[in-house]
């Protein structure tokens, strides 16, 4: 490699990481600013963190978000894992439609999915009277639909490395498919399944658009609360909240990283 080229690559890499991290760094630094104004540094203070703890509306919204996150991530993980298994089958009736439906939520603008699901809920409501009102359940359905597509991608990459002969051997020895799944396949793809759950949970905690369409009275999520506050302009409380989120996420990702980035099952024929 020539010196000029590696210098160029290094510069781009450094610039790229700075671009990704400087904005986050400014949030963290200014969350400790005593002043309400962004540009005026008037001294170190943790008062915005105190204000955060007393903000009942925000804490309620955070509770709703966590609940929706756990429900939808769990549903998305079950659905996405099963979908990944289905894709691994040699024969899959309607494979075209199935893969198309699975790929769609990955790129589809969220306003379209949000509007579509809301209109479905309203239509079902008009026909059957259920659900009585929109809220945690309807948001969770929307998030599960979005996140299952991501879980499928993650679990599938893990499944591809699996040797199908292991499952076949178990079946030849008389194991039923359910036994093969729970005792062989699932333990081997577990890191992918856990990573999928975490990803689904994060997507749910992060989503504003689907939640806005599908929430009802009294079921606002954290992003909805942040959004209405941010629309009013910059607020040091949101900076403090951002710092809390960034620290939590970093810890979880680093811990999960040890779990997930451990080497996957080796392809057949590889020396150990």
């Amino acid at each position, binding site marked *: 490699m020539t010196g000029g080229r590696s210098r160029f690559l290094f510069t781009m890499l450094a610039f790229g990481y700075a671009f990704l991290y400087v904005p986050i760094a400014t949030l963290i630094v200014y969350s400790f600013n005593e002043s309400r104004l962004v540009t005026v540094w008037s001294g170190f203070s943790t008062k915005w963190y105190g204000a955060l703890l007393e903000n009942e509306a925000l804490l309620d919204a955070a509770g709703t978000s966590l609940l929706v996150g756990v429900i939808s991530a769990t549903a998305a993980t079950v659905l996405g894992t099963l979908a990944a298994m289905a894709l691994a089958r040699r024969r899959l009736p309607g494979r075209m439609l199935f893969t198309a439906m699975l790929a769609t939520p990955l790129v589809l603008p969220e306003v379209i999915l949000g509007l*579509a699901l809301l209109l479905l809920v309203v239509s079902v409501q008009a026909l059957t009277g259920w659900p009585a009102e929109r809220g945690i359940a309807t948001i969770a359905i929307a998030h599960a639909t979005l996140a299952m597509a991501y879980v499928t991608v993650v679990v599938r990459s893990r499944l591809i490395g699996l040797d199908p002969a292991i499952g076949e051997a178990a079946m030849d020895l008389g194991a039923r498919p359910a036994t093969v799944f729970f005792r062989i396949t699932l333990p081997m793809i577990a890191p992918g399944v856990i990573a999928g759950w975490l990803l689904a949970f994060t997507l749910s905690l992060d989503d504003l658009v689907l939640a806005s369409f599908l929430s009802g009275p009294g079921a606002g999520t954290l992003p909805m609360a942040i959004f209405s506050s941010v629309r009013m302009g910059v607020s040091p409380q949101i900076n403090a909240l951002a710092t809390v989120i960034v620290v939590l996420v970093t810890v979880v990702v680093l811990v999960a990283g040890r779990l997930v980035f451990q080497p996957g099952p080796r392809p057949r024929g590889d020396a150990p």
Partner: protein
Amino acid sequence: MLPATVTARRRRGDGFTRLALLLPYAWLVAFLLLPFLVVVAVSLSTKELGTPPFVPPLRLEGGVPRLAPDFGNYAYLLDDPLYAVAYLNSLKVALISTLACLALGYPMAYAIVRAPARRRPLLLTLIILPFWTSFLIRVYAWIGILAPNGLLNALLLWLGWTGEPLVLLSTEPAVVLGIVYSYLPFMILPLYATLERLDPALLEAASDLGCRPAAAFLRVTLPLSLPGVVAGSMLVFVPAVGEFVIPDLLGGTDSLMIGKVVWDEFFSNTDWPVASAVAVVLLLVLILPLLWLQRLQGDRR
């Protein structure tokens, strides 16, 4: 020779296998396919005051089903130039953002592939990490930077590069910046995946045959990484066209984007039929790139 029951079970599967297949399939049909059909139906309905605020195109009148689609919403979209402008503007902003993502993301992905193997997991984690933190909060960070009394203006004033604060926020470049910032990981990861698979022996062969590094890049690396370029571009372009949060927080009134139009028609004007028509047309605009991506993924299998 295996017992007949075992081979049969392996071929057709039992109740568990069928359930495992049916569950995700049924979920996607119920919560992805069906909702789109409802959107199409509502886009053909007439606005009305009430709950729900529209008259469905297919209804029972005295026990007799009557089909009365209303194409007025689509006529309205053609009539008011606001919609055409918003569609074209969204495509333009998404295209510029995708190219900017590519210009920044390609060298970054290339540099990570060239980095020593033991550093790569950390470098990749650093690319993915921002994606795990709140998207909304990362967009919000730019408000503090770009605002008239924000950090960037403070810096420029302090350096003396400008005499008065520049208008940076609520502009189209701010929207492009926000999209590039938010979607950069989606560009880098597919690029990294294709570049990593590239056999270094190919470049050695090119060099042995007297090919200069720049020519080897243009004639070997770049063509072989095209699938990653296309995949990354689609992952940025398609969602960016319908993006709502970024144009709402960083954009101004002059650069209308179609995702925001859907949102406003729905939440501010409570015009569900027009919102649905806007969404249907947006979906039709995006279907070609979506099918392309689909075929690309099919080829890879």
